[in-house]
């Protein structure tokens, strides 16, 4: 009986055990946790930065290669199956998956920080630095993150919808592991996926909480003590746990749609109230520079000058996207049943990417406009505290208070919907890929997400969040390379014209 339970719940028990150990360790010895995670993080960055760059470029090439090959016509489902969602509904959901706390957190601050602190071979705060900043913002948020998500979601969709296996990462390894996917090897793969999801999501929740706190401090002069950030996390945790446990799926959907509308309104307000021609010029020239340099950007680690910069930004982003990929991948897979591989890959790679480009152009480009043309001094704020940049930027617009409040509202709703979805996904990953997740698992994962975010904020703040995202992503990156291989094996067995 106990043996059967341990076998069935192996992934849950093991992953929950590791995460609880991590939380306990962080509470008992935060200094030791900080030094241990920093050592692992430094070792990964010192030795494997190149692997992140090459792997992510490979994921992009692989995804495009599949879409344009004869396998592009294969359906993610049975041959006669029709797409589960209409095209526009599907695209709306892709938007929802692509938009989140990160866009709000980094939309203004990333271009400004690159502008102020570019690699050593570019003069800081110069027009060249502005161009560099926008290009890298496009690069970090462009087609590559979606290529990462594509690999995971395509693998899950193919093996679960077309091959009839559970929606688990381990299922994708059947072509190489065979029945061992039900044993230790398969469980290890799923535990790595859970591990990456917990730390990737906790990083985002940490960012979100920091920014909500900064916004409230900025607007209402709230104390900037870390205890307030923790309080914000606790309140948000209560809200998203209630949503996850009560199963207010419809409510979450309504909230998500509301957020998309609110984000779009905010986006166009910032565009309309700013300098549209300037911003649209930024869009066109950055897009050109991005397309023209995409291969160089993909593989460039600036080993002779600026290696640190590349490690701190590009490698961090790649790791963060990788750690998010089981979560986003599973979501995208679920909404994409019945699509062909070509349709899936090309849409997932282009539509959300274009939206993100527009977002970064409007927020980042407008911020650079204020900085370069009006000497607004927002870059200095971003350099001091990245979470404050958005609110410092909105200060320069009419109705700044309302816009800032809208941004905070967006952050809170994103926090709740992301954490709610992550809790359900983690529950599913630790329940054999089933859609029905017991409440006690939702409680464990919901509390774990928030506890990990709090522990990381207490041990080292923003840096600790980034360190853990990179560390947790590393093993999963190797899993993703394996996913490409197993997907290729699976597709090679298809009879295609």
């Amino acid at each position, binding site marked *: 009986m106990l043996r059967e339970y341990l076998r069935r719940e192996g992934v849950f028990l093991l992953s929950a055990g590791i995460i609880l150990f991590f939380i306990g360790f962080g509470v008992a010895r935060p200094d030791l946790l900080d030094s241990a995670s920093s050592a692992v993080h430094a070792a990964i960055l010192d030795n494997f930065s190149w692997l992140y760059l090459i792997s992510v470029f490979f994921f992009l090439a692989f995804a495009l290669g599949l879409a344009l090959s004869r396998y592009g016509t294969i359906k993610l489902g049975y041959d006669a199956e029709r797409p589960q969602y209409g095209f526009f509904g599907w695209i709306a959901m892709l938007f929802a998956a692509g938009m989140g706390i990160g866009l709000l957190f980094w939309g203004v601050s990333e271009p400004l920080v690159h502008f102020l602190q570019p690699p050593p071979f570019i003069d800081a705060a110069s027009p060249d630095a502005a161009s560099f900043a926008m290009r890298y913002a496009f690069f970090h948020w462009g087609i590559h993150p979606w290529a990462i998500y594509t690999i995971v979601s395509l693998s899950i969709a193919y*093996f679960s919808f077309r*091959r009839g296996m559970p929606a688990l990462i381990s299922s994708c390894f*059947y072509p190489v592991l065979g029945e061992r996917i039900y044993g230790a090897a398969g469980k290890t793969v799923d535990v790595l996926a859970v591990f990456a999801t917990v730390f990737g999501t906790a990083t985002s929740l940490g960012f979100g909480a920091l920014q909500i706190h900064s916004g409230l401090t900025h607007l209402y002069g709230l104390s900037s003590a870390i205890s307030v950030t923790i309080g914000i996390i606790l309140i948000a945790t209560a809200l998203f746990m209630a949503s996850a446990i009560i199963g207010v799926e419809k409510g979450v959907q309504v909230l998500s749609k509301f957020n998309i509308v609110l984000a779009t309104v905010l986006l166009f307000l910032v565009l309309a109230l700013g300098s549209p021609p300037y911003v649209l010029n930024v869009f066109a020239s950055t897009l050109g520079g991005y397309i023209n340099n995409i291969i160089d950007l993909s593989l460039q680690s600036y080993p002779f000058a600026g290696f640190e910069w590349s490690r701190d930004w590009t490698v961090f982003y790649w790791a963060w996207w990788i750690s998010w990929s089981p979560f986003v991948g599973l979501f995208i897979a679920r909404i994409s049943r019945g699509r062909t591989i070509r349709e899936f890959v090309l849409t997932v790679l282009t539509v959300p990417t274009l939206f993100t480009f527009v977002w970064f152009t409007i927020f980042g480009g407008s911020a650079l406009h204020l900085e370069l043309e009006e000497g607004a001094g927002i870059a200095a704020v971003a350099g001091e505290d990245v979470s404050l940049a958005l609110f410092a930027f909105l200060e320069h617009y009419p109705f700044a208070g309302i816009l800032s409040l809208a941004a905070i509202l967006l952050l809170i709703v994103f926090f709740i919907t992301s954490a709610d979805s992550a809790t359900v996904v983690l529950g599913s990953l630790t329940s054999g890929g089933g859609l029905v997740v017991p409440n006690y698992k939702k409680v464990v994962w919901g509390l774990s997400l928030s506890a990990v975010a709090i522990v990381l904020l207490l041990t080292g703040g923003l840096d600790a969040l980034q360190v853990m995202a990179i560390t947790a992503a590393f093993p999963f990156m190797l899993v993703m390379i394996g996913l490409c291989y197993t997907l290729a094996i699976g597709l090679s067995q298809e009879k295609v014209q």
Partner: protein
Amino acid sequence: MFEKTLIPVAYGERPEEVRKAGTILKTLGANSVCLYHVNEPGSFFRGADLSWLTLLSEALEETGLVVEVKTGEGHIASAIAETALLEGVDGIYMKAKRRWHIETMLLGSVSRDLLRLADVPVFVHKVRPRLPDDGADPAQSDLNVLYATDLDEASARTLPYVMEFAGAWCHVLHVRGRMADPLAERVRREAVERELGTVAEELRPYFGRVTVEQQIGDPAAQVLYVSDQIEADVVVLGRKSAAFLSAPMGYTAERIVTGSRASIFLVPQPGRRNAS
């Protein structure tokens, strides 16, 4: 199968070694042998006295075989493959030499080329079956044969050769990749079992015992493993074109020939003419 066999020889070949080869070939049903030597352009031995060839020929004749001596010029492997075709031999016999350690690890470039280029079956004699002076008395009826088959059309060409070995035991092995899901895997396994059963039925009249096995994994590694497990004397397999990506590692047949202790009988792909 070996009625007329071509034996490529080089300067320095010892008559007693050739005599042993003759004994084995006689056991396998050979009547006549074409001893063939290629003068490589620019070779140090080019134009040297060829009386050593006569000595080899005499040694072979002692085994009761009809011997014909021929020489040629050019790229060694291509010349051998071309002559084998022109002379209408049934197969080429090569003894894997063990005089130098390096040859046990890597086949010489001539042998590798010949394995790729030959349009007739090639028999590479390795450690097993043992030669008469190794304390064994080779008899065809004692042979353990491992037949590695892809179960595709090309394999059909190999089957008659397997029948001609007609030894004590034939183990039919099919190595394949795993299917992408459990259901497809079960269906494939059952289909392979049926196909292997059919092959076994065809071979049963020729062997004392016929067994079948399917394995998942790397074909070369699995063939070598199973060959050692069953102590096969001869591994019979068909030769396929090397996939582009496998070229740096050597194609499956080459890897098997290099690593096997059993002799290899390699049947070329049908419809391909390399030497010409």
